């Protein structure tokens, strides 16, 4: 932990000033363009745009699929983090590396390859079709894409906490008579909860704004598989810039609320780490 005393290192004014200027120029001013533009609009038509039935359907899908994918990733990510942190097995380094693929792979490439996998003639789609399950161009496809992009967030938040977890605490619980399951549920899970929640909320936030990996597999069917980001693109394709700005404002407000919640969560988990 860095001490609070004044640093003797040089360059505070220069580096902080440069960082602030750069962020203002490239992030803050461009971003404020959205809000200023939305403010300048006629509020009635703005409201009409963002509350149309087609958009309501897209918000519902975006929120619902993001939530379900984040919850799925809570379990999936916990399992992967647990196995990577606790066990040794052949190919472990490769498995550990591959977890970051969704973070590094361009979203459009992910979108195309997921569509190829789950299309009716694809590697998975072929067999799922026989079972009567269609993934590509349905809401299930949206969900699969969001699970793909969200996984690294949960694993990478939970894994370091599991690796640092004091095994003596577990041993103490066991020697005091707790069963393996009780130790897991009462000792390990509470310790993991802050990092798990942070990972899940990061995955959820990412899913809310995801575009590239979803739009190919979803097929963008009206009232069925249109996500909120796609609706912005749709308005822009019709040269309706005010409409696009209105939807973007709604999404930005939700994103900021999520960022705020995540920062609070992280502050809480830091406090937990410090007191334990």
């Amino acid at each position: 932990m860095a001490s609070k005393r004044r640093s003797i290192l040089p360059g505070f004014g220069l580096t902080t000033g440069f960082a602030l200027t750069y962020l203002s120029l490239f992030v803050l001013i461009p971003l404020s363009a959205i809000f200023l533009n939305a403010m300048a609009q006629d509020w009635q038509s703005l409201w009409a745009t963002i509350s149309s039935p087609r958009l309501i359907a897209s918000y519902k899908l975006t929120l619902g699929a993001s939530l379900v994918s984040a919850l799925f990733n809570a379990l999936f990510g916990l399992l992967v983090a647990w196995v990577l942190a606790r066990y040794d097995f052949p190919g472990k380094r490769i498995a550990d590396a591959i977890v970051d693929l969704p973070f590094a792979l361009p979203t459009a490439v992910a979108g195309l390859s997921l569509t190829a996998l789950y299309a009716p003639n694809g590697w998975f789609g072929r067999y799922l079709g026989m079972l009567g399950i269609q993934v590509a161009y349905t809401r299930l496809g949206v969900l699969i894409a969001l699970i793909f992009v969200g996984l690294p967030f949960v694993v990478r938040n939970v894994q370091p906490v599991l690796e640092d977890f004091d095994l003596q605490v577990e041993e103490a619980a066991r020697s005091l008579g707790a069963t393996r399951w009780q130790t897991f549920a009462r000792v390990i899970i509470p310790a993991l909860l802050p990092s798990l929640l942070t990972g899940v909320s990061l995955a959820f936030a990412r899913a809310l704004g995801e575009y590239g990996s979803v739009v190919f597999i979803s097929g963008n069917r009206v009232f069925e598989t249109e996500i909120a980001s796609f609706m912005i693109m749709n308005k822009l394709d019709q040269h309706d810039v005010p409409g696009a700005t209105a939807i973007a404002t709604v999404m930005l407000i939700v994103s900021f609320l999520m960022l705020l919640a995540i920062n609070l969560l992280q502050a809480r988990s830091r406090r937990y780490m410090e007191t334990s």
Partner: protein
Amino acid sequence: MAHRRPRHETTGNKITRWTLIAAALLLLSLFVVAPLLVVFANAFDKGLGGYWSAITEPDAQAAIRLTLIAAAAAVPLNTFFGIVAAWSISKFDFPGKNILITLLDVPFAVSPVISGLIFVLMFGLQGWLGPWLEAHGIQIIFAAPGIVLATMFVTVPFVARELIPHMQAQGREEEEAALVLGASGLQTFFRVTLPNIKWSLLYGVILCTARATGEYGAVAVVSGHTQGGTNTIPLHVEILYNGYDSTGAFAVASLLTVLSVATLIVKKLVEGKSTES
């Protein structure tokens, strides 16, 4: 994060352990490995010849060129910014630091479509500077400058985000010692700080490059989707795919996929280096 060996393996009996390992590997294969493999399987669908002609045809070459230009602008600038911002955030305490960190995260937190829309609102015909730009014959939106700007915006956080935790963990003692011994500020940075952060810097730069070359949503908004002039690799891939040239689309996409796999390999190497030191 440094890679550590598990201290012991007493958790669970043998059956539980191998069931969990098998379940994790099966899910990872289905959800992550299969999408990776299907790219290459489709790319070489028509053999090496088909692959080669897809990535060498003029439109693909134009897309590759523009992608490289955008990356050549975004990566060095954001690397320089990343180092400077990481120095400020990790070596000093000051009021408003959290606001700076939050601002840094914004390009990562907002939808890529919104990132593109921002530049339409600033430089588009109906935007702030649109009329002025048009009067002077400067085109930013639906042209290469817009693509470069959007790419710069979305890749702002990556180098800084990689460096900050490492520089915070290292503290200030080594730099303070160098300064006390008479080194100048820049000497301290190049001789003390840089050798300490070089591996995470390398990973940050490669991740930034992968994201810059692979950006799709933001670039799709500012490009206007026209063939030839303003397509980057991901946009060219989309056009091929929508034109039912799936093999061509995956062939071009495989270029980006190779870069992202290289990113993963570098990350592993960097983790190995940081545990050695």
